[in-house]
Each structure stands twice: as structure tokens, then as C-alpha cells.
């Protein structure tokens, strides 16, 4: 007998490896599709400075309306299952670590604009088991709705409550609350069972446009939402941070959030 069992197994596994590997090599070398390099909006650490001194409730509502309509965010009208990418919150709930019985009236009585902080040290990305959320090179904490398995570990990990889960089909949201849903035919909706949040409008940044909330706010008052690159010492955000005192949400947790509030 020529080949014994051990030799047979060796030959069989080697052939299988070559077969699979060979196919991959063939596909790699096949005449293929090139990627075109079209210049994107460059940045190393996208951040936002929000001037709360001049912000008003109406403008914040405009920001939410703009964001939620461009991204087809459904309105269920039920806080249990609500989905929000950007929203308003009172001071004591936006900054609960600033426990203070005698907060300045101006600071206390206004609402604050909250969104994902796109932290530089994001706990949500650490805990995601599939990499459906990850930190991009430009600092944006991104979402891949194709890969999310809906385990909601990122929601447990986020200290800021920035993430929403699609408890049901977003397309089944009540029509009365959002009659023109989905408002934007150029952006997908999501499906039930995935987590979503603000992505700093990465699809607009790729075209060289500012995030929708920034555009909406700055249309009403200049420089209300300053969006720029923290890594560039001469950027608009760095200039604003040099000039004004700012606070961030829960800085003691080490997440290094990139949304700053001028109070």
C-alpha cells in the first residue's frame, strides 16, 4: 500500500489549503477595479464646539429636525423606544457630575444640545464584539449597520446615553408623527435590531460639506456650532477653545469627549 493514513491526511490538507489559497490568489491578481482617489475633507480629530451662550431652544430644535430628516430617523413618540441622534437636555441632566444647588441662573435655565461625543478614547468601540462601531483615523466613531448584531453592549458602555436601538422596524413608526418619513431618499433607513447614533455626517464630510446640524444652526446665527479639526492648531475649533472656557460631559471618565460647550 503506497500511502498510509498519516500521509494521506497531510496530502489532503495541503491540497485543500492550496486549493482555497489558490482561488484567493487568482482573484487578487484578476484584472480588476481600481479605486479612484477623490480628495475627502481631511482631518485628524474632528470635534465640535457649541456656543451655548447664544444658543436658543428654537435653533436646537432646528438642528434636531435637520439631522433627523436627512438621516431618516423615525419618530415613535414613545421615550421607551425613541431614537435620537441629537437632542436637548436640561443642565442637571446634561452635566449631572456638576452637582450644584446654586448654579448660575443663565446656565441653569437653558437647555443643552447633546449628541454623540465621538470620544478619543471611546468605551463603546472597545466593547463592540464585531467591530460594527469603531474609531476612524479622523476621530469619528463610526457605525456599520451591515455588521451590527444588536447585542447592545455599546449602549451599556456609553456613559453619555448617545446611542439608540431599533427595538422595532423604523419604517413602522406612526405616520402622524413623521408624515414625510423617510424624508431623504438618498440615505438609507436602518432596520430593526441595530444600534444607531450620530456619525458626524461622515457622508457629507466625504463630499466636503459640514454636518447638517452645524449648517442648520449657523444659518440662524454665525459660529453657533463650530466644527473643525482639533489636531490642527490653527483650526476654528482650536481658536474657539483658546478664546473661551468650555466644559465637556463627564471628563473624569477618561473617554476624552470631543464635543465642547461654551457656557
Amino acid at each position, binding site marked *: 500500500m503506497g500511502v498510509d493514513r498519516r500521509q494521506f491526511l497531510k496530502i489532503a490538507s495541503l491540497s485543500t489549503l492550496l486549493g482555497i489559497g489558490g482561488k484567493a490568489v487568482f482573484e487578487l491578481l484578476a484584472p480588476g477595479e481600481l479605486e479612484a482617489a477623490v480628495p475627502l475633507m481631511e482631518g485628524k480629530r474632528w470635534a465640535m464646539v457649541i456656543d451655548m451662550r447664544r444658543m436658543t431652544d428654537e435653533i436646537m430644535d432646528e438642528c434636531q429636525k435637520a439631522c433627523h430628516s436627512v438621516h431618516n430617523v423615525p419618530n415613535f413618540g414613545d421615550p421607551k423606544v425613541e431614537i435620537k441622534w441629537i437632542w436637548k437636555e436640561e443642565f442637571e441632566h446634561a452635566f449631572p457630575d456638576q452637582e450644584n444647588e446654586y448654579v448660575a441662573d443663565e446656565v441653569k435655565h437653558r437647555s443643552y444640545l447633546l449628541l454623540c461625543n465621538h470620544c478619543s478614547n471611546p468605551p463603546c468601540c472597545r466593547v463592540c*464584539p464585531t467591530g*460594527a462601531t469603531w474609531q476612524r483615523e479622523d476621530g469619528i466613531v463610526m457605525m456599520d449597520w451591515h*455588521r*451590527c448584531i444588536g447585542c447592545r453592549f455599546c*449602549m451599556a458602555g456609553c456613559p453619555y*446615553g448617545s446611542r439608540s436601538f431599533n*427595538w422595532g422596524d423604523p419604517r413602522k413608526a406612526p405616520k402622524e408623527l413623521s408624515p414625510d418619513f423617510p424624508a431623504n431618499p438618498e440615505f438609507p433607513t436602518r432596520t430593526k435590531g*441595530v444600534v444607531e447614533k450620530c456619525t458626524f455626517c461622515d457622508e457629507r464630510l466625504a463630499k466636503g460639506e459640514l454636518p447638517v446640524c452645524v449648517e442648520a444652526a449657523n444659518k440662524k446665527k454665525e459660529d453657533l456650532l463650530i466644527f473643525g479639526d482639533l489636531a490642527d492648531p490653527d483650526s476654528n475649533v482650536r481658536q474657539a477653545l483658546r478664546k473661551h472656557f468650555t466644559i465637556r460631559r463627564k471628563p473624569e471618565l477618561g473617554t476624552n469627549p470631543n464635543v465642547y460647550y461654551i457656557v
Partner: protein
Amino acid sequence: MLDRAIKGSNKYWGWLIFLLVIMSVGFACYLYQFKVGLKITGMSRDVSWGLYISQLTYLVGIAAGGVMVVLPCYLHDYKAFARITVLGEGLAVAAIVMCGLFVMVDLGQVTRMLNIIMYPRPKSILFWDMIVLNIYMALNIVILWNVLAAERKGIHYQKWVKVLIYISIPWAFSIHTVTAFLYAGLPGRHFWLTAIMAPRFLASAFCSGPALLLLICLIVRKVTNFDPGKEQIRTLGSIIAYAFILNIFFFVLELFTAFYSQIPGHMQSIVYLFSGLDGHGELVPWMWAFVFFAILALVLLIVPGTRRKEDTLAVGCVAVIIATWIDKGLGLVIGGFIPNPFDRVFEYWPTTPEVLITLGVWATGFFVLTVLFKIAVSVKEEIAA
């Protein structure tokens, strides 16, 4: 040996059919959840993990508890436990099966489940949890089957099985440590952000697992011809006593840190659980029930008279299971999410479909347990004959 599972008394089949009914109801509810989404549960944007994940956490503890029978037997030559190691391993297998099912029913996109394997992220504790739990289940199935088969043939099991047994002992500790790490490393959840989470989990596992095993052994003695043994039950009782004392002690330590430091982040969840926060207190009666059963269990387990008598020991074990279940299977996960990151209280209570799915999974676990124990006990009955 599988044929032992399909030959049984009417009571055996009656029990299996009863479990199958519960499993079918649960499965039907799950199909509804699969179609409509997780909104049929009580979970919300603020309390994004609920009954499913809390049961998973409790059951990993039960699975790890099997090691309390294996460890004395193999590391300390306590040969009396050799009689029931197979039962401990069977309980571990059934518990891990339930853990896997609870993960699956909790996922929003369960058809994408294999993404964890296709796109591994070693930084994520969930990735490691999946690995250690699956390996632990495989270890226990292989060990159980080989030891039982060897027993049936009247020979000693092969040497390589011993290696696996030695691995399974620290592995049992690791599964529950990794599960604790799921919670203990999240910066935004102060109720969970404590180094003692893993020790608490382990202590709770080592009393709840053996307690369940003890109760099942008493049932086995009653309904079959196999007697796990009086000495075995007694030793298990002592182990449960020590583990439960440790469990409660660790809990009291948490209370000290929270209330002596007076830091709101540490205190608030405990206050919510035991006395209510902002007018919300759904879990308060449950947590005080936990205190009652904990004290009952402590008394019954510490007093030698009640611990050594099997009927009071059984009551003590029931009290341990109820207490640990409320603490881990209800208070831990829900308490971690309340108050939410905005310092608000948004309560959670499971819905009926959610409870039915949960019961369906528990029934599946008990089905697996019954089948495995039937095989094991049948083999042991045959050898004794």
C-alpha cells in the same frame, strides 16, 4: 448510552412533555419577537439589557458552580465526590446551553450571530465570553461522556480525560470572571464599576450552582434507584454555606464603600433597589425579599443542626437559589442601568412574551439536564446492579 434517554417511566416522559409544552410556547413567542423586534420586551433606550441578559449572567454562575464538586475530588482526593462529578458536569452543560440560548434571544440581529467569529475583536470582552463559554461546554460534554462511558464499562477513563478535567477547574473560574468583566469595565455604569464584581460573581456562583445540584440530587434519590450519597450531600451543604456567607459578605462590603464614601454614583443604584429613587421603586419589594431569603439561608446553613438535617438543608438551598436569583438575575442588571446617564429613573419590567420566552429557555435547559441525568443515573443504576 443515548438510548438510556429514550427508555423511561411514564413520569419521566410526562416531565419531558411538560417541558416540551413550555418550550413550544416560548418558541412561539420567540417567533413573534423575531418578526416584530425586541420592542415586545420591556427593554428601553435606557434599560437596554433586561431579563434575558440577567438570566445569562445567573446561569453562567450555575455552570461555574459545577467546579465545586470537581475541585475537591481531583485536586484534594476527596473521593466521595467522584460519585457525583458527572452530575455536576451535566448541570454545567445544561446551564451553558441556556446561556447560549439567552444570548440568541437577546440579539437584535440573530442571523448575524457569526459575525463575532468572522470579525473577531479581542478587545471586546463579549468575544472572550463567547470563547470561554463554548470551550467550557465542550470540555464538560467530553469529560462527562468519557467518564460515564468508562464507568459503564467498568474501566478507568483514559489519561487524556484527566488533563481535560484539570483544565476545566480553572476554566470554571474563568468563565464567571470573564462574565463579570462584561460589567466591571464600563466607565459609565457606577453600580457595576467595582473590582469586587468578579469575586461577588464567583461567590454567588459557588453557592447557587451547588445548591441547585443538591436539590436535584435529592430529587434523583427520590425518583430513581441511584443515591448520590448522604456524605456527599453533607459536604455540599458545607460548601454552599461558606460560599453563601462570602457572597453576602461581599455584598455588605459594597454597601460600606457606597454609603461611607457618600458618593452619589455609588449610592444611587443601591438606593433605587432598596428604597426607590425619584418616586420609582418597582424592585424594592423584591430586594427586601432577597434580604429575607438571605437571612433565612444564612441561619439554616450556618446552624449545624439545620445544615446537617437534609430537609432543612433543602429549604436552605431553596432560599439560596431564590436570594441569588433576585440579586443577580434581577437586581444586578436592572440596577446598573438605573439611574440612566442623565440621572433620570426609567424603570424596566419584563413583558409577558418576554417572560414566556425566558421560561421556554429555562425549560430547554431542564430538558437537556433531564436527558443527561437520565443517562448518567441509568448507567450508575446498572453498575450498582
